């Protein structure tokens, strides 16, 4: 049964009464919600076996549990799939410099665009039955990061997948670990923690050779000065910080200060976030390369970072997509340099076995000849790439028709197109997180499912990656 059929069956079984979506309800704060709940006005969850705050999982699932970390690479703007990882030669259009070669298990691969990655193909699993639901950048980018339709019931309060991971991984965090669990590099517009607490939000940073901004006391005069200042601050400000009369924002800020304090002058921070010119060069000497390099070092430091989001933008090539200075070729070089070095370093450090790498754009781009502007426009068919954490590489899952426009072979057990919700389930499963979990601490009290409709098995992980 396809997911579409499952939706339809669900609807027949349980007709939608068009209860207003959450956003159409009068706004209830979490506090007010629980106040009301406490006084028994609400009804639904009070009567239900579920109680607020309880976390339940309805389906007993077996997770892959093979990954400790995730690197999530967002190709912002949407990379053309048929010019890259689902390569189709379009006579008269495709530049000969793309130099496609037939690779066993993968098929045609544009070695001209990815001269380095062609040597990493044995690590990569390319899923070609991936299809987007939306063709609008902002919406689709949000969808990718929260693993659900942003316009759906819980879309507006849903946390970033990385925030869910941060929350789930918190019990494993050691007191000695000082890095943020969720790191977002070159991702200024990354979706935040949704309704989760601020400490699960992405820590947004731009990698720099000089390290993580403002984590050294050198400019202030060294650790002695810094410590002195720190105690003075607490002496003077604790009345406003500890059990603050100014309330939660001031206490949150104090917690952030404590976290920040642990990062200042910490050799682990310096080591993980600083890098040499030679290393940067090895990764292509680009912002993306530096993010890959930093990710690798951060994971090697084992300081509590478990989920890293990296954004590489510029793929929205409506015009002149084959321009040699401004089109696919130079941007693919950036990707090729950074990703191949990342895979190589993770491989040699042994971290690749415990780190799942996921890479995708918002959607794909139109197939066949170029548009009148020499570009490719938005298109639903796309690809997604997985590597690491035991994923069996050197192959493509699923197959598109000769144009690359539609799926001919789904390549997985659900026998339908692969979706962002499935990606989310795959990430959770890889990390050992039960993707069917439902939290009842959401502000609307309707139950926040990690993966929508997971209980009904509408979406699920791509176990074939490991098979």
């Amino acid at each position, binding site marked *: 049964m396809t997911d579409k059929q499952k939706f339809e069956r669900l609807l027949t079984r349980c007709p939608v009464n068009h209860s207003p979506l959450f*956003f159409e309800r009068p706004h209830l704060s979490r506090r007010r919600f629980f106040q009301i709940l406490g006084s028994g006005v609400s009804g639904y969850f009070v009567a239900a076996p579920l109680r607020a705050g309880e976390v339940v999982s309805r389906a007993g699932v077996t997770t892959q549990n093979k990954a400790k970390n995730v690197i999530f690479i967002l190709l912002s703007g949407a990379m053309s799939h048929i010019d890259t990882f689902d390569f189709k030669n379009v006579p008269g259009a495709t530049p000969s410099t793309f130099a496609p070669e037939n690779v066993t298990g993968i098929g045609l691969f544009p070695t001209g665009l990815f001269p380095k990655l062609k040597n990493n193909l044995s690590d990569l699993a390319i899923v070609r039955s991936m299809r987007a639901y939306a063709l609008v950048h902002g919406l689709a980018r949000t969808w990718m990061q929260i693993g659900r339709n942003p316009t759906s019931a819980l879309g507006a309060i849903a946390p970033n997948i990385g925030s869910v991971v941060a929350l789930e991984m918190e019990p494993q965090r050691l007191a000695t670990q000082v890095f943020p669990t969720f790191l977002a590099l070159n991702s200024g517009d990354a979706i935040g923690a949704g*309704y989760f607490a601020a400490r699960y939000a992405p820590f947004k940073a731009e990698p720099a050779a000089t390290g993580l901004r403002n984590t050294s006391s050198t400019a202030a005069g060294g650790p002695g000065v810094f410590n002195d200042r720190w105690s003075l601050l607490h002496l003077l400000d604790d009345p406003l910080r500890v059990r603050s009369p100014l309330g939660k924002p001031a206490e949150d800020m104090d917690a952030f200060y404590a976290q920040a304090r642990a990062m200042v002058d910490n050799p682990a921070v310096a080591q993980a976030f600083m890098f040499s010119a030679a290393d940067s060069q090895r990764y292509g000497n680009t912002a993306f390369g530096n993010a890959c390099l930093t990710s690798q070092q951060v994971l090697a430091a084992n300081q509590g970072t478990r989920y890293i989001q990296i954004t590489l933008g510029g793929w929205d090539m409506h015009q002149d997509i084959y321009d040699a200075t401004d089109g696919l070729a130079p941007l693919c070089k950036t990707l090729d340099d950074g990703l191949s070095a990342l895979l190589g370093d993770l491989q040699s450090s042994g971290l690749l076995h415990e780190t799942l790498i996921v890479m995708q754009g918002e959607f794909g781009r139109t197939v066949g000849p170029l548009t009148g502007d020499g570009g490719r426009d938005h298109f639903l068919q796309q690809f997604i790439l997985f590597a690491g954490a035991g994923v069996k590489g050197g192959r493509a899952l699923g197959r598109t028709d000769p144009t690359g426009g539609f799926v001919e072979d789904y390549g997985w057990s659900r026998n339908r197109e692969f979706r962002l919700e499935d990606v989310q389930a795959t990430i959770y499963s890889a990390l050992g997180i039960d993707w069917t979990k439902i939290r009842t601490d959401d502000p609307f009290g309707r139950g926040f499912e990690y993966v929508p409709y997971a209980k009904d098995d509408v979406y699920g992980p791509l176990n074939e990656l490991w098979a």
Partner: protein
Amino acid sequence: MKNSTTRQCLLAIGMAACLTAEVQHADCTLFGPQRDRFVRVPDRDLQILSATSSEVAATLPPLPPRSRSGALQSGTGSELDDILFAAMRANGVTPAEPATDQEFIRRVTLDLTGRIPTVPELTSFLADSGPNKRPALVERLLASPAWVDKWTMYFGDLFGNSAVTSQVRRAADGRNAFYHYIKSSLQQNKPYDQMARELIGATGQNSYEQGELNFPVGGFMGGGPQQDTYDRQAADAAQIFLGIAHVDCLLCHDGRRHLDSLSLWGKDFTRSQAWGLAGFYARTQLTRVPATPGRPNPYYWSVLNDFGRSRADYTLNTTSGNRPERLPRPGQSRTVAPVYPFSGRGPNPGESYRTALAREITADFQFSRAAVNYVWKQFFGLGFVDPPDQFDPARLDPNNPPPDPWTLQPSNPQALRKLAQDFIASRYDLQALQRQIVNSRVYQLSARYQGVWNPTWDKYYARHLIRRLDAEEIHDSLVIASGVSATYTLPGLGQVNWAMQFPETANTPAGRGNAVTAFLDSFLRGNRDDVLRSRETSLPQALNLMNDNFILIRARVATPNSLLARSLGQPDDQLVTTLWLNVLSRDPTDAERAAALDKLRGGGSAQRTRNAENLLWALYNKTDFFFNY
């Protein structure tokens, strides 16, 4: 089981979008890029707003002996205060004590001009024993250039002025032109209805030369038919000038089965009616004109009526783009005439459509209500209707309450009406509105509260609600406190010394990687497009306040003209007072003074210097520096 059925029903809600499987027109800003606005909004606001407690009195600075609260009479007896205090009495809420002079001058200087007061301003105000010192201070602030800067920033946020959005490129030139338009409008204290008419009706050839053109340009939607742009422009006008963001929803679908429990007005409003509003834009053509020959950009924009493809009424002929298909129902005309839904009127003969829309909007009482509510929120952290773009037009009139189970929407409908009436009577004078607000007794209540505060009392404004300073306010207040200026050169604007003078919030004063940009960004100033300004706190904020060079150089004696360079020679006791007045705009408490003196007195002269620097650094990092209370 009944239960699991209920659960399935809940799961099924919201599936409609998924059922259509491939969503191609879902660009509703309520859920797309602007979703952050709704993420935890009630929670977040409540936490900040109801933050203070009875302990505040003990821990915030003491009432200084020389403080007078006698100046409070200025606001007594105003009708607005009468309404608000009556509501407190009726609900058994005891208001907080009046704010002290020190609290008042810091609060009102930040709220009106985005900076803390200078020490001369502070001391002369405190020394003044005249009965009108508070209104006089307010007049001085309203007349200051800093007032123009702060509110240029505010209206830049509201009107979405930026060089680039996800949809449109105004370029630095267009952004600067828009910035200058807003700024000069505020310098003249242009009536707000006039500003609205100029923005809604803006017509002209060159968006680089005519700033107001950049307002309609902001509604440009690519990748779809012209109607997507008309819809966006109408939705923007409704949200910004009427506070009714639901028009955006209604331009995709009828209100029925979508807005039923949220908007009494919206639940029966139809998409066809919303098209009537968008119809005012149907004859507006946005055209990109190459500014320089050859590729690439920049392009400027022209905004012309009855031009290009926009020469006919709003037509129902689309099946693609960013919103659901627009097709006539059987018997329905293929074109939709412009009709302002709240008056039923359209353009007069010979009147351009947008001129008509501007006339209708500014003649609508809701225009005034929305404007005063937006501004009120800036001073109190909480609008009478909140969020301030969620107005339900059918639940606003206190003389005409809605049927059960609906209730009037504003937390105080009479006060909102009174403010809106006064705003009209003042001929939409923004300064008069702000004068009325900050001179009110209710604005001048303390954030401290004796007794137990119930968070549900926030809406009565019975105590002042605290807020974290905005990015620009932190920057500019650090400049004031330290005396160490900042200078930036911005394209097309020359030298700028205050963050509040930046023409936009994204990539300013320089692009990604710039230290000041990163410092400001950590305070979540947003980008006026898909990232909204926020007053949350964060880990990078803490790192920056402790270690950023912007702070560090301002704590050093060696920095020329810095606070310590000027005051280190003072005796210890005087130095402590100087630091507190410059940074925290208040005297130290006895405990603080004792701790500071203890610190300064240890060791020799070099040690004293270092201790003074440490002390100053600690004050920059104090909670009551980066909050307005």
